[in-house]
């Protein structure tokens, strides 16, 4: 929430000053957006989202009896 004092201060500015504040804020917001997604950047997605066969195999491993002397603690 924007503090009331800040809003009141902004309202007291003249037209040129208000436009300047606006310009600075718009410019900073644009820079932040540019950081969010870089055009040349790559964003790998590692999630094996449909690895059903692997999931089934791991479940079978969990259900199998542990080999002697090889149990994880």
């Amino acid at each position, binding site marked *: 929430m924007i503090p009331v004092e800040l809003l009141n201060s902004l309202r007291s500015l003249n037209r040129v000053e208000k436009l300047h504040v606006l310009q600075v804020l718009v410019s900073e917001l644009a820079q*932040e957006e540019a*950081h*969010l997604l870089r055009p040349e950047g790559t964003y*790998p*997605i*590692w*999630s*094996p*989202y*449909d*690895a*059903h*066969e*692997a*999931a089934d*195999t*791991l*479940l079978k*491993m*969990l259900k199998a009896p*542990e080999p002697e002397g*090889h149990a*994880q*603690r």
Partner: protein
Amino acid sequence: MHNAERYPFTAADAILGEAGLQPYLPIALTYQDRSVTVSGLLDTGAMVNVLPYQVGIDLGAVWEQQTTELRLTGNLAQFEARGLLVSAVVGQFAPVRLAFAWTRATNIPMLLGQVNFFMEFDICFYRSQLAFEVRPKEGSA
């Protein structure tokens, strides 16, 4: 019922600010006599838990001794993977057995996925508060 433990979202990429915050959970893994503490990404879209190659090595696991071969999907499909069972401790909760797809890939986060992390723990995300809560499934010790 267990009390939930609350964790903050943490920054994976400082440049991204709030967009880079992700649910990483500190978890202690033990295999035979060796333990390491790693931060795992809670990944509801991952069918399986994924263990980066180096973490498996740090645990003392030997690649050639893991004979269960797995086929992963997506970007991980290009790497060999093998099944590995470890003991895992989250916070103050009792140890659980987790099954991992141990991948040859190194530069990836550890993923905590549906099989079987989300079968062992109930998770509640509060993204708007940049936090999540973890508790063992009902009926566990």
